[in-house]
C-alpha cells in the first residue's frame, strides 16, 4: 500500500534526505520518499502491517527532526 502524508515544519533539506534514508531502512518498507519541496512523505509498505510500520516511521522521524510533524 502506498500512502502520502503531509508534513508540517520540515525545515531543512538535509534532514529530509536523512529521514528518507532512515525510513527506507525500517523493515517492511518497500519504498519511501520525503520531499522537502512539497512537504510530503510517501510511504510504500506491507499492507497488513501498515499501521505498525507507520508508528516506527513516526518514531524514526521524531529522532531526526523532532520539530517536524507527520499529519497522519
Amino acid at each position: 500500500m502506498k500512502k502520502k502524508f503531509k508534513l508540517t515544519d520540515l525545515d531543512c533539506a538535509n534532514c529530509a534526505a536523512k529521514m528518507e534514508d532512515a525510513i527506507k531502512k525500517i523493515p517492511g518498507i518497500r519504498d519511501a520518499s520525503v520531499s522537502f519541496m512539497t512537504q510530503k512523505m510517501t510511504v510504500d509498505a506491507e499492507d497488513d502491517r501498515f499501521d505498525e510500520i507507520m508508528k516506527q516511521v513516526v518514531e524514526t522521524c521524531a529522532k531526526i527532526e523532532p520539530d517536524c510533524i507527520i499529519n497522519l
Partner: protein
Amino acid sequence: MTQKQKTVRTRIIITGVLFAGLLALEHSIGVTLPGYVMLLLYLLPYGIVSYDVLGRALRNIKNGQVFDENFLMTIATFGALAIGEYAEAVAVMLFYQIGELFQSYAVGKSRESIAAMMEIVPEEAFLEEDGKLVAVDPDDVEIGQIIVVKPGDRIPLDGVVEEGESFLDTSALTGESVPRRTSEGDEVYSGCVNGSGTLRIRVTKEFDDCTVSKILEMVENATERKAKTENFITGFAKYYTPVVTVGALILALAGPLLFGGNFMAWLHRACVFLVISCPCALVISVPLGFFGGIGSASRMGVLVKGSNYIEAVAGITALVCDKTGTLTKGEFRVRSIVPSEGFTEEELLETAALAEGYSGHPIASSIREAYGSQPDLGRVEDVQETAGKGIKARIDGSIVYAGNAVWMKEMGIPLNGVEASQAGTVVFIAKDGILAGWIVIADEAKEGTASAIAAIKAAGVKKTVMLTGDAQKPAMQIASELGIDEVHAELLPGDKVAEFEKILAACAKEDARGKVAFVGDGINDAPVLGRADIGFAMGSMGSDAAIEAADVVIMDDDLGKIARSIRLARKTMAIVRENIVFALAVKALILILGALGLAGMWGAVFADVGVSVIAILNSMRALH
C-alpha cells in the same frame, strides 16, 4: 511567515539589540569589566538565540547522531566561548539563525508560488437536486451524474456537455490563452474555467481519474524522480560534514604539534571549519532549482515528470518526430481524382468511398468526406483490410482493390509507372483487375511547424528526423517544407520501434552523451515514446495513455513548446550548476583561509549564510 518563523525572527531581533548594546559597552566605555562578567553578559543573547540549536544537539547526541549541524555549531561556539571570543560565539549563532530563517522563508515562498500555480482543483461541484443547486465535494460525485458549472467557475470533473454553450479558458492546463468554444456533446476537462454560459455536464470520470488529479499527482511525484546532479549532491553531503569535522579535529590537535604556536589559535581555526560544516546551501538549492524549472514548465502547459527529465531535455541533440498529427494536421484531404480511361470521376470516387466505407484510417475518412453523402454499405461485401497497404472488397459483385502501390503490385495490378510521378499519398483503385484510376490525398503541415522546427534547431538540436508511414515522395516534400533533415518513410506501424532503434544507434555513434527525443501524439506510438531517452507526447489533454507513456507531456499541440522546454531545461541546469560550483568554491576558499588562520568565524558564517541566500535566490530564477 509561520508561527515558528515569527518566533525565530523575534529572537533574532532581541539578540541583535542586546548584542549591539554589549559591543558598544565593550568598545566605547573605558572601564574594562572582568572576563567572567563579560561572559555572563554575552551568555544572555547567546542563550536566547541558540537554545533550540543546543537542545537539538543534545537530543541528537542521545540518538547517536554526531555529525549533525546543530551539534557542530554548538561545538564551534563553545570553542569560541572557551577561548574568550564571546562576541564571536554570539555572532556565529546569530548569523546562523538568520540564514536558517531566510532559507525556510524563501523556500516556503517558492513552494507557495508553485502551489498557487497548481491551484487548479475546484473545492466543490454543484449537483442539481429538485431544481436547487447543492454544493458537494468533487470526490463524492459519481460517474453519470449531472453537474452544473456556473459562469466563471472552474470545471471540477471531466465530462461531456449535456446542455449549454460557452467558451472555456484552458490556460491552467495548456498555457494556451485563446478560449476554446464548447457546446453540447463536447468533452470538457476539469481544471478549465467556464466562460459566460452555464454548462450542464455529465460526469464521465471519478475525481481521482480526472485530468486535474492526474496532473497534480504527476507534478507532485516529479520531485521523487531525482536528477543525477541531485543524487550527486545528496551523496556528497553525506561525506562533506564528517570530512570537515575530522579536518577540524586534525587542525586542533595536530596543528600545534606540527607547526607549533598557540593551541588557542589552532582551536580557533578548527572552529571556523565547524561553522561551515553544514552542506545546506547545496542540499537546498539544487532541488529547489529543479522544482522551479518543473513549476515554470507546468505554467506553460508542459508537464515534466521528474528532475531527471529536465536534465535529459537539456541534453537533447536529436529530435525524432512522428509525422501525422505531430507535424501535420492529420486531416487528409482529397487533392485530385484521376480516373483511367473508361471511368468517370464520380464513379471512381464512389467506388473508393464504398471500399473504404468501413475503414477507420484517416485516408478513408477523407475519401468519404470528399464523396459527400454516406455510401450505401449494403453494396459492399467481404471487406479485408491489410494495415499499411490497402483494402480488398467485393462491390456489386466486382472485386475492388484500394490501396497504395505496394498493394497493387501484390494484387497483380499493373500501374505502368504512374506511381513514380505522384506527390502526396495516392490511393489506387482497381476494379475487376483493371486500374480504374487514383486519388491523391495530401496532409497539410500545421501552422507554425516550420518555425517551431527552426526554433528547435536554434535551441541546439543538431538533427531532426521524421518517421512516417507515407510514401517516400510526399514525405520528402513535407520534410523539405519544414526543414527536417532526415526522413524515414513507408514504415508500417510495427516498424517504428525498430527504425527508432536504428536512429538511436546512429546518434550514439555520433555523440554518445547526446539524448534522442521522440515526439508523438501518444496514441499509437507509446512503444517509441517509451524507448526514447525523452518521450514528448503532444495534444494530450484528456489522454491518459499519452500521459502514462511520455516523460514530458505537452498539453496542447503546439510544437513550439518543445523549443521552449529545451531552453527552460538548459536554463535550469545552468542555474543548478552555478549553485554547485559557487557554493563549493566559497566553502573551499573559507576552508583554506580558515586553516591558514586568515578567516575568522565571523567571516566564515557570513560567507556560508551568504552562499545559501544567493543560491536560493538564484534557484528562484528558474521559476520565472
